[in-house]
C-alpha cells in the first residue's frame, strides 16, 4: 500500500462496519423500545422509577457505585418445579405415588428432601426437566393430588437469590444513565429492592456497612450522612445504630437528602417480573 488515501478509505470502511453493527444496529433495534406486557397479566413493564429514585440513580452514578456492583443477573436456562397445591382426599395414595415415582424413575431430590409429602403447597421436585415434571404431574394427578408445574430460572445468581430471572434490556428502558457495571466486588444489585426491601437497613448499610454485614469490604459512605447535636427532640430520621457504631453522646446521625435518594433508587431495583424474553412462574404467596 503506497497510498495514504487507500488506507484511509479501507480503515473508514472497517470503522463504518463496526459503527453500524455496534451503534446504529442496536439503536435501530432498541432505540424505540416500548413497554412490554407482563406474562399472564394485563400489566405493562417497566414503569418509570419514582422521581426520588431517578435522582438517586444520579447519586449512584457520581459515587461510582458501578465500579464494584453489577446490575445484571445471569441465568443458565430454565427448569421446572413441581408444586403440590392440594393432597386431595387420599393423602396416602399421593404419597405412595410420589415415593414410587422417586424410586422407579430416579426423580432427583434435593438432599434436604425426604420422601414425605407434608402439608401443601410444597415444592416436590426442584429444577427438573419438563419431561420429569410432566410425568410426575400425571402420576400424582392420577392419585388424586393437585399439582402445578412452575417454570423457574436456574443459574448461580438465581440460586443466590439475586433475582428471579436474568436481566433484560427492558429493565433499563427509562434509566438515563444505564449502570450495568462489570465487576462484582460487591453483590449484584439488579434485584436488591426485592431482596433487601428495608430502607432502614439500606441506610445503616450505607453509613456503616460492617454494622449489618460483618465482613463487608464496602467503604462506609459517612459523607452521605450528617452527625449533629440532638436538638429539642431527636430527629425522626435518625439512624438506630447498633453498639460500636453509635455517634458521640448527645449526637445523632441523620441521612442527607442524597442518602435518601440513593436508597430510594436501590429500593426501586427489581428483576422480579416475568416477561416474554425472561419467563418464569411467579409464586403467589397465599394470604394467611
Amino acid at each position: 500500500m503506497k497510498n495514504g488515501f487507500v488506507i484511509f478509505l479501507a480503515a473508514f470502511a472497517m470503522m463504518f462496519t463496526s459503527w453500524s453493527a455496534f451503534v446504529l444496529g442496536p439503536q435501530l433495534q432498541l432505540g424505540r423500545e416500548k413497554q412490554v406486557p407482563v406474562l399472564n397479566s394485563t400489566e405493562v413493564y417497566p414503569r418509570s422509577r419514582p422521581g426520588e429514585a431517578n435522582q438517586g440513580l444520579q447519586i449512584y452514578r457520581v459515587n461510582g457505585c458501578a465500579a464494584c456492583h453489577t446490575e445484571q443477573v445471569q441465568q443458565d436456562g430454565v427448569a421446572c418445579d413441581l408444586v403440590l397445591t392440594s393432597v386431595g382426599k387420599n393423602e396416602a395414595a399421593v404419597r405412595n405415588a410420589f415415593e414410587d415415582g422417586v424410586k422407579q424413575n430416579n426423580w432427583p431430590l434435593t438432599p434436604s428432601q425426604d420422601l414425605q409429602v407434608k402439608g401443601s403447597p410444597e415444592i416436590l421436585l426442584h429444577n427438573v426437566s419438563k419431561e420429569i415434571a410432566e410425568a410426575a404431574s400425571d402420576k400424582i394427578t392420577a392419585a388424586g393430588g393437585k399439582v402445578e408445574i412452575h417454570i423457574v430460572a436456574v443459574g448461580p445468581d438465581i440460586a443466590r437469590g439475586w433475582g428471579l430471572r436474568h436481566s433484560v434490556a427492558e429493565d433499563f428502558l427509562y434509566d438515563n444513565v444505564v449502570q450495568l457495571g462489570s465487576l462484582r466486588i460487591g453483590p449484584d444489585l439488579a434485584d436488591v429492592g426485592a431482596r433487601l426491601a428495608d430502607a432502614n437497613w439500606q441506610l445503616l448499610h450505607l453509613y456503616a456497612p460492617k454494622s449489618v454485614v460483618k465482613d463487608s469490604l464496602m467503604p462506609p459512605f459517612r459523607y452521605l450522612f450528617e452527625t449533629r447535636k440532638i436538638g429539642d427532640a431527636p430527629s425522626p430520621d435518625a439512624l438506630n445504630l447498633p453498639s460500636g457504631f453509635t455517634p458521640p453522646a448527645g449526637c445523632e446521625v441523620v441521612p442527607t437528602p442524597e442518602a435518601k435518594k440513593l436508597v430510594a433508587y436501590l429500593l426501586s431495583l427489581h428483576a422480579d417480573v416475568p416477561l416474554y424474553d425472561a419467563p418464569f412462574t411467579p409464586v403467589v404467596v397465599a394470604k394467611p
Partner: protein
Amino acid sequence: MTVNETQTDKIDASCRVPLLVLFGGAALWLVVGSLLALAASLTFHMPDKFGDCPWGTYGHLQPAADDALLYGFCIPAGLGVALWIFARLGQVPLRGALVPVIAAHLWHVGVLVGLVGIFVGDSTGFQWLEFPRGGSALLFFAYLLIGLWALMNFSGRREVGMFPSHWFLVAALFLFPWIYSTANILIVGWPVRGVVQAVIAWWFGNNLVFVWTSLVGLGTAFYFLPKFSGRPLQTYFYALFAFWTLLFFGSMRGVPAGAPVPAWLPTLSSLNSLMLVVPVIAIAIIGWKTVVGAAGQECKGGSFCMVKFGYVAFILSALLLIAQSCPVIGRLTQFTWFGTAQTQLQLYGFFAITMFGAIYHILPRAVGIEFAFPKLIRVQHWLAMLGVFILVASLAVGGVEQGMKLNNPAVAFADSTKAMLMFLRVSTTGLLFILLANLLFALNIFVMILAWKWSLVKSVFAFVISPLNKTEVKA
C-alpha cells in the same frame, strides 16, 4: 557532518517542543495515575478509613486512576511518538510546531478538568468515558489539532513509500475522533435510550483500550524492532495481513456475554474476539522473525528491551482477551478481576512500556541533551516489568479463584470477596513497584525538561549580554 545527518538533526529538533510538552505532561499524569491506583487499592485493606469524604472512595479513585493512565499518559505519549515517527519516516521536519504545542497544553488541561470532574461528582458513570463534557471537549479538539498536524506532516512526506508503521498510526489517528465523538454525543450529549448506552460504551471502551492502543503500540514496535535488530520487518505482507485482520475483528467486539441486550451482540463480539487469534499469530510471527537471531543491538535494559517486552505483553494480553471471550472461560471470568488484569496488561504491560522504550530513544535525540540518570533507565525497566507481572498475575489468578466461587452458589458471596483479599494485597505490591518505576521515568523526563529550560535561559542570557559587551568595548 553529512547532509543526511544535518537533515535528521533538523527533523528531530523540529519535534522538540511538542514532544517535551506531550511527554512531560504524560509523565506527570503517569505518576498521578499510579498514586490514585495505589490509593484505590488501599481502600480494600482499610475500607473504614476512606468514608469521610467522597474523594476517598473506590468509586472515585479507580475511574480517576484508569483515566489518568489512559488519557493522561497513553494517548499523549502515543501522539508524541507518532508525530516523531511520521517526521522521521517521511524525512520532513514538523512545520508550525506551535499548534501541536498549544494542543498538547489543551490536552493536559482537558485531563485535569476531567479528573477534577470525577472527584467533584461530575463523572458520566461509563467506564473509560468518565470525563465530564468540559474535559472531553478539550480532549477532542486537542486531539484533532495534533492529529491534523501529524497527518499534514505525513502527506507532505519526502519519502513517498509507506511503511507498516504508517498504516497502524494513520488508522489510529482516525479511530479516536470517530469513537470519541460518537460515544460522547450519544451517551453524554444527547443520550440514547436504555441499554443502547451501555452497548455504545462497551464498543467505545474496546475500541479505545484495545484497538487504539494496539494500533499505536504495534505501529511503534514495527518502527523500532527493525531499527534495533538491524533486520527489516519480517515481512511486509504479514504486517499487512495483521493490520487488516486486527482492525476488522478487533473493532467489532466489546459486548460481554450475558449482557442484558439482544443476543446477537454478545455473540458477534465473542465470534470476532475468537477470530483475533488470526492477527495475533501473524503478529507473533512478525516479532519472532524480526528479532530472534538478528545481529543488531544488544538490549541491556534499554529501549530495545522495553519494546520487546511490550511486544510479548501484547501477545499475552490479546490471548487473555480471547480467552475471556470463549464461552467456557468467559462464564468463569465474567465480573471478576480477570478483566482488570487484562486491561492492565494491555495498557501498562504492553502500551506504556513500549512508549517508555520509544520515549527513552526519542527524547535525547529531539532535545539534544542526554538523560541525567541513564542508569535509572535500566532500574526503571526492571521495576516496571516486576510490577506489571505481580499486578497482572495476582489479579488474573485471583479472578479465576473469585469466578469459581461466584459460580458456586453453595459458597457465600462474602467468601468470594474474602478469597480475593490476599490477591489484592499482592496486587498492591505490584502497584507499588509500578509507582516507583513511574517516578524514575518522570524524574528523568523532568530533569531533561529543566535542563532544556536552563539551556534556553542561558542562551537568552548570552544573547542579551553579548551585544552590550561590544558596545562597551567601542565606547
